[in-house]
């Protein structure tokens, strides 16, 4: 007899600050040892379900609950959050926000400190937990010095010390590079199998999670559960497409080729997939391909020549880096965390000066530019829009860069209105920014940079944390800008973004350039993929399964098709 550990019974929840309930009529049960994935677009209520399971609702977020939620027999609305946290361990999305201790060991010990465990016992338990998550060699390290993947291991270890029954992961992959994400999924799987932990994962990167077995996928949309099926069954439906959650790429390719997905094909993982029934269709579909567009070789707008950089007294962060970007290009710069991407951005924007080498912008050596001058040529959109926004109204925010430069009022109005129009924000110019979603704020920050009319735009992880709908919105917008003549450089972890939107990619590893080629070629190069912590896309594997000779052509075909179809369902 399976033992239920999480039971939602006619459950509903309305945040005190909101007019309508966020969750309605939620009914599902999770049994001991199960591994359940919860997916849904932004604002669907999937994170709210997570808050309910770990007790933040109703203990930290106030509101009205209807129905009932039981965690291992406890009613969450009457049990204190400290009791719930003994059963449910939560690993939050932002690894930086959840660390409380200064060192790894201390952070692992946090919940035991709160339990008043004697020191000797804490020390041995910390050792144990560190071993489980593979951080034994880093106990004394400061949390600042860890990589994204290591931080997540520490966060996981911190809840493992409590011997919780249920592990809850809130978007565990959001801040990880592709290869590290893969390791995280493996580790979660291991805990599930070997220690019989019940695992709940909330994530919209479906394909990455399905890399290891998942028992069920619950799809949430508009605060309700729209499906609760095994992965194989779910992928055979059109539910994901309807709620705009991105399907695995190989599934999408098969659907484009006109194949019907059935649970019998075992579509949940590429390595279990059986496509014997539709090879023909795939090959046929491939014939309608357009040719690869070669790299354009027009006038260079940004040239880096033998750039090296190190902080005073520090190690070399960048070494002998050279590349050239042509006017009107859209390029990705990829590489693992700490490879030197953000330092490179700082150099291009003039925030830091290279120790040696030259940066040439529009044919001129840019060494003498101040930050303020450089901003007129190169605009930077930072990853976190909250770091850039300092005004209340959209119009004022976008106008700010012109106002502080003392541009005349009429000119400001003209340029701001033009920019808002390009960004699709003109009707909302008098709106308060605080009323916007993350993706909309991003758009405002792009507008506030564009208004200075830079020829080059650099965006740091423009789609991080966005669901598929917002992702497509932002990227299509950038593509339009690119067509208007703005050169665009993307700093990203997202392999699909690079493949789909930027013909060319530059790969940085340990401060050096290790590849500079068509994106398709970069992702077909096993050596580069391994060195830079990238991940091969499943399309290559599908091409191999279908015995397609030219895998790159296959991918090109997919991208061309995806863009046409992608537009339609928005």
């Amino acid at each position, binding site marked *: 007899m399976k033992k239920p550990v999480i039971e939602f019974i006619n459950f509903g929840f309305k945040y005190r600050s*909101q007019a309508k309930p966020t969750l309605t009529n939620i009914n599902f049960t999770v049994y001991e040892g199960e591994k359940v994935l919860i997916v849904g677009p932004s604002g669907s209520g999937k994170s709210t379900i997570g808050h309910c399971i770990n007790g933040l609702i109703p203990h930290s977020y106030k509101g009205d609950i209807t129905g009932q939620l039981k965690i291992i027999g406890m009613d969450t609305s009457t049990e204190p959050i400290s009791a719930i946290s003994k059963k449910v361990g939560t690993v939050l999305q932002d690894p930086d926000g959840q660390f409380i201790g200064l060192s790894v060991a201390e952070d692992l010990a946090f919940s035991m400190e709160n339990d008043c465990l004697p020191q000797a016992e804490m020390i041995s338990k910390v050792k144990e937990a560190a071993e489980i998550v593979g951080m034994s060699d880093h106990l004394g390290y400061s949390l600042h010095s860890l990589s994204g993947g290591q931080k997540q291991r520490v966060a996981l270890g911190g809840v493992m010390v409590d011997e919780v029954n249920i592990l809850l992961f809130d978007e565990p992959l959001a801040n990880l590079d592709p290869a590290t994400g893969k390791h995280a999924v493996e580790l979660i799987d291991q805990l599930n199998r070997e220690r019989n932990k019940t695992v709940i994962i909330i994530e919209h990167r479906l394909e990455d999670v399905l890399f290891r077995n998942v028992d069920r996928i619950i799809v949430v949309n508009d605060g309700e559960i729209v499906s609760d099926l095994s992965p194989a069954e779910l992928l055979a439906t059109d539910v994901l497409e309807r709620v705009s959650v991105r399907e695995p790429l190989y599934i999408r390719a098969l659907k484009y080729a006109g194949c019907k997905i059935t649970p019998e094909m075992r579509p949940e993982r590429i390595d279990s997939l059986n496509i014997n029934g539709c090879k023909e269709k795939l090959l046929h579909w491939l014939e309608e391909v357009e040719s690869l567009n070669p790299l354009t070789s027009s006038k260079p707008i940004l040239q880096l020549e033998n750039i090296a950089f190190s902080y005073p007294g520090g190690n070399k962060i960048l070494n002998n880096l050279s590349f050239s970007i042509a006017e009107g290009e859209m390029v990705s710069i990829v590489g693992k965390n700490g490879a030197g991407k953000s330092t490179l951005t700082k150099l291009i924007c003039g925030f830091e000066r290279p120790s040696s080498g030259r940066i040439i912008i529009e044919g001129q050596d840019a060494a003498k530019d101040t930050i303020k001058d450089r901003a007129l040529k190169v605009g930077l959109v930072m990853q976190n829009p909250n770091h850039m926004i300092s005004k209340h109204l959209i119009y004022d925010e976008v106008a700010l860069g012109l106002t502080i430069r003392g541009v005349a009022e009429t000119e400001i109005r003209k340029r701001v209105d033009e920019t808002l129009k390009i960004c*699709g924000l003109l009707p909302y110019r008098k709106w308060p920014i*605080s009323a916007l979603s993350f993706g*909309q704020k991003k758009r405002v920050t792009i507008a506030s940079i564009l208004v200075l009319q830079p020829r080059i735009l650099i965006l740091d992880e423009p789609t991080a944390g966005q669901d598929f709908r917002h992702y497509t919105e932002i990227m299509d917008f950038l593509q339009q800008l690119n067509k208007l003549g703005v050169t665009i450089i993307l700093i990203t972890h997202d392999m699909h973004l690079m493949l789909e939107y930027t013909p060319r990619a530059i790969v940085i590893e340990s401060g050096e350039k290790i590849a500079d080629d068509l994106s398709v070629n970069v992702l077909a190069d096993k050596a580069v993929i391994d060195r830079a912590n990238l991940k091969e896309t499943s399309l290559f594997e599908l091409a191999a399964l279908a015995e397609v000779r030219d895998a790159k052509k296959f991918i090109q075909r997919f991208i061309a098709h995806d863009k046409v179809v992608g537009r339609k369902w928005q």
Partner: protein
Amino acid sequence: MAKSLSTKTIVAIGIGTAVFVILGRFVSIPTGIPNTTVETSYAFLALMAVVFGPVAGGLIGFIGHALKDAIFYGSPWWSWVVVSAFVGFLLGFAARNIKVEDGIFGAKQIISFNVSQVIVQAFGWMLIAPALDILIYGEPANKVFVQGLVAGLSNMVTVGVIGTLLLAAYARTRSKTGSLDKEETL
């Protein structure tokens, strides 16, 4: 001291202290008068005191000032540390009826906030700080009273201008939440 502080208040004290230290070290505006800078950190202290209450305000002022002095200047100047705590506490106490977290910060609240900040700071910087300087450090009276006067006036202006702006901005981010539909309109 309150019976027990909520986790949120404790975190607010910790993070508030960190921000107070960074503002105190990096974001001070030279006024043009030698050795006198406008300390923007007091505007932030006022915000935290109004939002999180007198205990948080007092502790952020105390720990923040002591840490800032210790980390960047080697040793805390205790007499003024005490006054920072006093100002933080009383600002929070005086503003206990201003419900800024519900998005209410209109003309009436602005006036009441500013009247109380001027009184509290006049008392703190122009009276207590010099008195403690004489008591603890035995410094000459007319020197410390002039210092207190200048610092007091400058902090009143800072809190009055930047503090009011910060509170208004904070109130705006909190307002109308009841009517916010999650449906996106763009």
